[in-house]
């Protein structure tokens, strides 16, 4: 088996191979770490690394597979990268900030804890921008993370390190978190899969659990791997008050989508979409239609104000930590942090109040009826992937003839406000510049399974990284790989 095959092997396939002993967790972990080392200098997706520890753990996993009597976790031996903002007991998570350089966590995020208890092998942490507050991925703490598809372009943010590692074959599975699009936008930028679960599906760290915008979620290269991770991470938790009551399992075998009614919108009535992204999106819609679903374009208007407020509500909630950073830690924070505070302060408590009042009415009048009629809604994830690796929040990107910020081209935050909607971000194709672009499959509140059904059918109809030709070309970096 060549190295690329190992590095891009889906987790589901690796598990089958582990069980049949045609592959050892040691072999896989070695290949992944080898790849990680080869790309780190240029792409820089990794924060703290635990390679030696992971190799030891891989040996333990190997023994477990050899003695088939041993109790195997359902992710036993799979190399896992966890975002640097998510706490793990006894390890540091800096949240991309020198402020937290020495921060060792006392508690693990409960969803991550479940992955680790299921045998996933944590080998590294992945980079994020400071406080996870950019749609690009750079900080004084971790430097610049680049897109494996094109080094001057961002892998997205804030879960940019996880997305880049997956796209480069430098992790088998990864995690992210998403409060305005931080799983889905990087997934789109890098051509991988990211899942923002419904609020309450996956338990959160206590300081986040009462903020409906912030979700933790799986990132992977295939829909099946994403489902595998979701099934481990999801379910009620006694120490997170806000978890949903039922334990949902996404079945291994998902029904097809024949006869399913799916709505789509190219722009949510609000966004400016680049022509090549639109082309790939519409081709994707066509392939879903060919797969047997009934696709109908829905006119959406009246969403602009609630989209503005979905960012504004988050910006308001960020006042506290951004003020603290700028006022008390200006010597260590990244140069863009004062600007983040400036943006945040443009939104007030009135915007937050208004977001609460308006959200119910907009759902009742606009989105509720769409989801009443259709099983899901599909829209693009970002309107143009041409965001530079070192982009700042206020910098402009040219989309068609308009100058827009990365926030203004990322179509995700609405479904953080509508937090119960499950959203699966998958690749939709390749732009004229050779970059991936993506789409979001948005489900009815708490209807995760439908979203995965559509994702799985779409993956068969329009496959991405499973095919070698749909992977980024990393030759220059991998000269020392073989």
């Amino acid at each position, binding site marked *: 088996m060549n190295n690329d095959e190992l590095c891009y092997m889906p987790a589901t396939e690796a598990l089958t191979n582990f069980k049949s002993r045609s592959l050892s967790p040691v072999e896989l972990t070695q290949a992944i770490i080898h790849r990680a080392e080869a790309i780190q200098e240029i792409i820089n997706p990794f924060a703290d690394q635990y390679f030696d520890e992971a190799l030891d753990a891989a040996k333990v996993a190997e023994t477990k597979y050899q003695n088939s009597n041993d109790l195997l976790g359902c992710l036993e031996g799979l190399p896992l990268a966890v975002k640097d903002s998510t706490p793990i007991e006894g390890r540091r998570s800096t949240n991309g900030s020198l402020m937290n350089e020495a921060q060792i966590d006392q508690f693990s995020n409960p969803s991550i804890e479940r992955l680790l208890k299921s045998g996933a092998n944590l080998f590294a942490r992945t980079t994020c921008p400071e406080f996870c507050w950019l749609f690009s991925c750079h900080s004084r703490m971790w430097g610049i993370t680049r897109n494996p598809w094109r080094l001057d372009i961002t892998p997205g943010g804030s879960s940019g390190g996880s997305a880049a590692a997956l796209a480069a074959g430098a992790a088998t599975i990864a995690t992210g978190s998403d409060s305005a699009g931080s799983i889905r936008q990087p997934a789109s930028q890098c051509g991988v899969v990211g899942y923002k679960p419904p609020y309450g599906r996956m338990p959160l760290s*206590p300081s986040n659990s009462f903020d409906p915008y912030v979700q933790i979620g799986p990132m992977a290269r295939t829909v099946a791997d994403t489902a595998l991770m979701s099934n481990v991470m999801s379910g009620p938790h006694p120490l997170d*008050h806000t978890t949903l*009551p039922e334990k949902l399992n996404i079945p291994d075998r998902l029904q097809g989508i024949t006869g399913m009614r799916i709505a789509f919108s190219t722009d949510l009535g609000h966004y400016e979409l680049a022509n090549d992204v639109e082309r790939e999106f519409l081709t994707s819609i066509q392939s879903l239609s060919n797969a047997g679903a009934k696709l109908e374009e829905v006119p959406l208007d009246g969403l602009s104000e609630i989209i503005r407020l979905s960012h504004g509500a988050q910006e308001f909630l960020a*006042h*506290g930590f951004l003020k603290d950073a700028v006022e008390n830690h200006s010597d260590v924070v990244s140069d863009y942090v004062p600007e983040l505070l400036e943006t945040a302060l443009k939104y007030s*408590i009135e915007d937050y*109040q208004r977001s*609460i009042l308006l959200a119910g009415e907009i*759902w009742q009048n606009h989105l509720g009826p769409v989801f009443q009629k259709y099983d899901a809604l599909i829209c693009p994830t970002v309107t143009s992937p041409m965001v530079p690796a070192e982009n700042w929040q206020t910098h402009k990107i040219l989309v068609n003839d308009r100058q827009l910020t990365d926030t203004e081209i990322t179509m995700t935050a609405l479904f953080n406000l509508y937090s119960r909607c499950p959203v699966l971000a998958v690749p939709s194709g390749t732009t004229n510049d050779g970059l991936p672009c993506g789409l979001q499959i948005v489900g009815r*509140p708490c209807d995760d399974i439908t979203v995965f059904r559509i994702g799985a059918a779409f993956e068969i109809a329009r496959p991405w990284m499973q095919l070698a030709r749909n992977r980024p070309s990393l030759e220059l970096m991998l000269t020392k790989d073989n």
Partner: protein
Amino acid sequence: MSSDDLCYMSASEAIKQFRALSLSPVELLDAIIDRAESISDTINPFADCYFDEARHRAKKAETLYLQKKTNVRPLEGIPLVVKDICKISGKRTTEGSLVYAQSVSQQTSAHVQRLIDAGANTFARTTIPEFAWLFTTQSRMWGVTHNPWKIGISPGGSSGGSAAALSAGATTLATGSDSTGSIRQPASQCGIVGYQAPHGRIPNIGMSSFNGYSKPGPMTRTVADCALMTNVMSGPDYRDHNSLNKINQITLDDCDLSGIKIAFSLDLGCYEVSEDVVQETIGAIEALRCAGALVEEVPVIWAKDLIELALGAQEVLFSDYLSEVVNKHPDLVSDYVPQLLETANSYPIDTYYKSLATAGDVWRDHIGPIFHKYDAFITPTTTYTDIPATGWQKDTVTVNGKEFTDTETTMAVLWNMYNRCPVMAVPSGRATSGVPTGIQIIGRPHDDPTVFRIARAFEKERPWLDCAERRPNLAIKR
């Protein structure tokens, strides 16, 4: 059957008798309206009344029962009152304010629609304080509502009209809403049952759908009626993004509490509780032990700051709405409304985001572990009963020699913050003044059935309103 028996008849019993044709919906409604009219002057629980159209509907319901149809709806012909903040299409909803005196609703609140669709017969609306923002029930719009147990004492607020009507036998069922205790505190004051379902259980459409603190809920005299209403009102609605998937219907078959573990706190470590409320709460705890539960006191050290944040979060959310109305209509609002705004504006804005982070931490460190060990948690609902009917938010009462506002005597708001917990308020006994006292039965997140099971067992051990001695003496004019 005496008129008192009819007025205090449970909905569950009435339906049985309707079906057996031993009672007609017309007969029941007539008795209720008769009672309503006779207490209106003294207690004043009603806002707009729709007696004539309700009689017309009762007549239709009577026909349906007489036809012995098998598909008669679950609440067919049951008299219902709806709080004057819940909406009914084509009727006005004033929110207790002269500002909205002419405000006719274009749509019906989802939970009310379900009750109507189930056959409940809305014959009146119930009073609230202006914008539902007091723990008493008085306003320029509707005047002062009194407690049937003691004129001069408040029935509580904001669902004070509903609670007073139920305890006076002047309705069979009622609706309320609760964002800091507005169902549970009136239920406690009037000696009836009030239920705050987990957020999303009962759909909430429009403006308050995304405010997790604010929820509509049933108010009744019996636990069985509360289950009946909850079963009708709960379940997903596509227009409410936050509505939860349907759970199984609540049944009350199992009233044995053996194997059930209950934690309790008399004061959440920070409330000053009057001696009579303490005694009645201890009595209630004993009753639960008699019913077979293991009940243990747990130390609470984590509540004080959190309660302040919970109250503050609601005030911060409310302040904008309130200031807009006050500034536009200073001539119309009740004289206490500027004071409400002053309180709302007194909280620093960072209260809101602090409340989010702190809530998660305290749950993980303290409350989560309690519910991990125990099936439910019990506290008093209020610390003190004798709140004057004309009380304002900043007026104080004396509890154990110290001065407190009614906000400071109401132990409810924590469970608006922890809004996935089902909470049922039930009567625990009577204070020395004769006004009822109450407890809250707080369940694990989304575990409604256990709360109902405990409440039903408790009701059997320590019944209320079931006979003349346990009802308020209304001195009704004949």
